[in-house]
């Protein structure tokens, strides 16, 4: 420790570069950030691909996610086990999807997954209510919440099944002017 040590092999770095929107430097920085979360858990040396997972409570404490009302969902969505325990791969994956250069389609898919609280591949009213409560910190009255959810469904639900399928969601979000700029985390 402390010595100059290789974190990744060149091959690994190149692979990461091809699979994400990050440069070499950024990947190393991500590793630094990842390691910062749990220094005792994450080794400096990743050349032998250690299988390490950082629990969600630690991930969520990152300043980038700390204030996000959907942080738990984000972490769950991007973790392979669905519980929020993130390997370094998941970690890179997450920030790659959120970075500025990632395309609208990709962001839409992940946004859908994030807002789909119960993971049934549909955003139903229940999901909407949860989203809204998180978004307003519960400042709206139940009637208001209900009204807003219904209105949203009315607007976006094209096939009339009272829940938003991915295509409904995509159609709605693709026209939203602020989606790309807002669904973005800089690291």
């Amino acid at each position, binding site marked *: 420790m402390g010595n100059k040590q290789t974190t990744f092999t060149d091959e690994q770095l190149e692979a990461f570069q091809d*699979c994400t929107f990050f440069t070499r430097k950024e990947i190393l920085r991500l590793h630094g950030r990842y390691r910062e979360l749990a220094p005792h858990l994450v080794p400096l040396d990743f050349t032998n691909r250690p299988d390490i997972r950082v629990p969600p409570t630690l991930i969520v404490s990152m300043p980038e996610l700390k204030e996000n009302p959907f942080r738990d969902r984000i972490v769950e969505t991007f973790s392979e086990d*669905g519980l929020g325990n993130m390997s370094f791969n998941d970690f890179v994956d997450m920030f790659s999807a959120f970075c500025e250069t990632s395309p609208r389609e990709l962001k839409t898919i992940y946004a859908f997954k994030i807002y789909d609280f119960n993971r049934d591949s549909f955003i139903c009213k229940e999901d909407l209510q949860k989203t809204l409560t998180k978004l307003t910190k519960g*400042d*709206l009255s139940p009637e208001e919440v*209900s*009204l*807003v959810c219904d209105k949203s469904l009315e607007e976006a639900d094209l096939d009339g099944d009272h829940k938003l*399928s991915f295509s409904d969601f995509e159609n709605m979000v693709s026209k939203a002017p*602020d989606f790309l*700029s807002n669904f973005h985390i800089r690291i």
Partner: protein
Amino acid sequence: MPPKRKNHSAIRVEEVGMEVDAVSDSGSEDEARRRAQNRRAKPQRKAKKVSDDDEDEEDEDEAPRKKGRRKKTKPQDSDEDDEEEKQSVKRKTSKASRKKAKEESDEESEEDKKKRRKQGTAGSKKDKEEQNKEKGEVKGKQGKDKGGEKDKKKKNGKISSSSSSSSSSSGSDEESLSEGEMEALKEQVEEKKKLIATLRNKPWRMKRRLILLKEAQEFVEKFEGALGKGKGRKLYAYKVMMAKILMGLPYGSIPRKTVPREEQETAMDFSVLNDFGVRILAWLNLFTGYIKYSFLFYGYFNNNRRIGLLQFRLPLSYLLVGVGIFGYSLMVVIRTMARNANEGGDGAEEGEFTFSWKMFTSWDYLIGNPETADNKYASITTSFKESIVDEQENQKDENIHLRRFLRVLANFLITCSLGGSGYLIYFVVKRSQDFAKMEKENLSWLEKNEVEFVMSLLGLVCPPLFETIAELEDYHPRIALKWQLGRIFALFLGNLYTFLFALFDEVNEKLETEKSIKNATDWAFEQYYTNYSSHYNTTDVPPPNVHPADVIRGPCWEDAVGIGFVKLIVSDMQVTYLTILIGDFARAVIVRFLNYCWCWDLEASMPSYGEFDISGNVLGLIFNQGMIWMGAFYAPGLVGLNVLRLLSSMYYQCWAVMCCNVPHERVFKASRSNNFYMGLLLLVLFLSLLPVVYTIMTVSPSFDCGPFSGQGKMYDVIMETIEQDLPPFLANIFTYATNPGLILPAVLLMALAIYYLNAVSKGYQNANLDLKKKMKIARDEEKNRRNNKDSTNEVMKDLEDLLPNKSLIPPPVEEEPHPDVIVDKGAKSPKIKPGAAARGVNLQKDVSLAAPNARAPVTRAPEPRRGPPGNARSPQPGPGRGRGRGGHPSR
């Protein structure tokens, strides 16, 4: 093994988590691939699994849930499949390629046929054992990725293996590979490359991406070598032209690059700094110094037609660059606008997705600051509440006459203040011209910089004034914002143009004085020559030996214009910075610290903290850019100055916003009206282009200053180049092209083209509207159908669809709702849909929300997610309808 296969695809889908439409293409691809693998990979499955399990053991230990574990096994399976595939393919290929090699050698030339065949078979047999190993592997990879094209690829794999083996045996017979096969292989390599390039866009887990990447890379490596390309290209470095060449002669070599004698003492005189003690203010006064004669300004460049070794044509390139900048800016702005128009955002009608957008796209994921987050929560909550109220108040109408009167009054007031500000500027500029004729020493700083000062002050005072007046109008905030922006725009533009007209007056005056100076100079030269020749009695007169600083020179109006703009920019910068310092920082300090000992709450009520006005700032940027465009031709250094200004202002304003501003109460993102701002920018660009082009075409340049000195008009440089440097036939073409006889038809043609395109776009618009209408009708119908039906069961639905002419069959429960449905559908406003009111916030006076209830589905038992029984949805035709029509409160 169909069950296994199904399982596979199911797992895969689950892992990706999105079996929905988005990834359907890749999903089906996966399945196809899987199928292909399973077909060939039966035998070794068991054995392989054992070895692979080792690797994944850890994963499985950690996977805490069943689902998780199932996912874990997925990549392992695919690994295993890989291996199996490789092996099976290996076997296949070794056989196949042997056969293939024979076929191939058959095709070869007649003479070598026999010899070759022997060699080929013998050689390839040996080689194949080795090479097939590799090839087979590669093929496995390739096959894995694109199961759909499996067969084709297999063939290709054979080809390449045989080709390489035969080439090893018989030297170089790469041509023996038929063109088509080569193409196919290339195509695959391209495909793989494309996969590598787009891998990052796929919504897959990182693990899977890494695996796929590795495979694809190996494939490409193998085959690209065989195809003999992808060696990497060399990059050539370009040598950059040296500044010296571009700039011509250095300072001091010609008069316009030298400070005149009488100004040399004051050039370095910084005493003016002490006038105000503010260091930045020195900028303004420095212009009388070196800067005025630096490359910042037009006058620095001289009129040598060619400079240096490279024969650099400075005047020509000066003109072309000046005009080219406008062309480039126009192109960029228009392209951006077109892209914005395409890229959604404007695709949806206003209000189509009000609530869903707020719900899903309003949170800014960049927020990392608790305070900002709190603000955002509050702002989102407010915006939701506003939308709810908006929804309820759709029908509200008030005293329309009073409102109209107030609006007219407000517009009148604003027009007055616009006119007033215009006049003030004109007045001030006129006065400054009088000042300019007076002695410099008698003038105070204020008098010298009055114009810029007044302009900045107006820009400071008027917008808040407009805002106050706009309160009278009582518009919806979004509309009010547009009005406000439009007015500020008018103000800035008016000011700028008044300034410009006043400047033109000055230019004309300068042209007059220039004439007299020119005459005087000519006269002086004449005197000198006659004196010299008469004195020494020779006709060979050397040029007068005068230091450049002492040469008599004209006023050079181009420099004056440039200086005017630089002063404007600098003073604008100062005012902005000072405003922030005083209006935001000082205010914030006072509010924050005086709050401890004040009688009311300073933070919450009266002065409060400053708000950061996004739209105003964007507008400021746009106008700043406009000034740069206008001034850049006469002061090329302005561009650099502006870059500095923008950089410093970014950091400065960032600091100010972070430390002493609160966010605007209503946040209107600039991106929402993306093209609105771009449109303003375009307008400003056009308006700033006009005066510049006008001067280039009509005003004659100074006789002793700048790259165009000596020309009648600036654009004569182009004419001169055409005449002197281009071959005569090109010059002829240009003469024809500039003939009005050709230009007029061209303009006509363009106008007609615009007309035609306009008509076409109208047609498309109509078609669009039509389609939208149809979609809406289809949607409504669908909803009605669902709601009126006894069961949501898919099978029942299908059965129902099969019934003959089912619309004639009366619904089982009651038929009354039907007419209602139809009638109300026509009558209701498009925005209001059933379901909202049923869910029921207490919407008192709200007619519109209650009305649709009646049209809402009535004939079936309420679904679980519907509102409580007893509201209009339950089958109680009488009251329900009554309510809908009468507009009584729903509860």
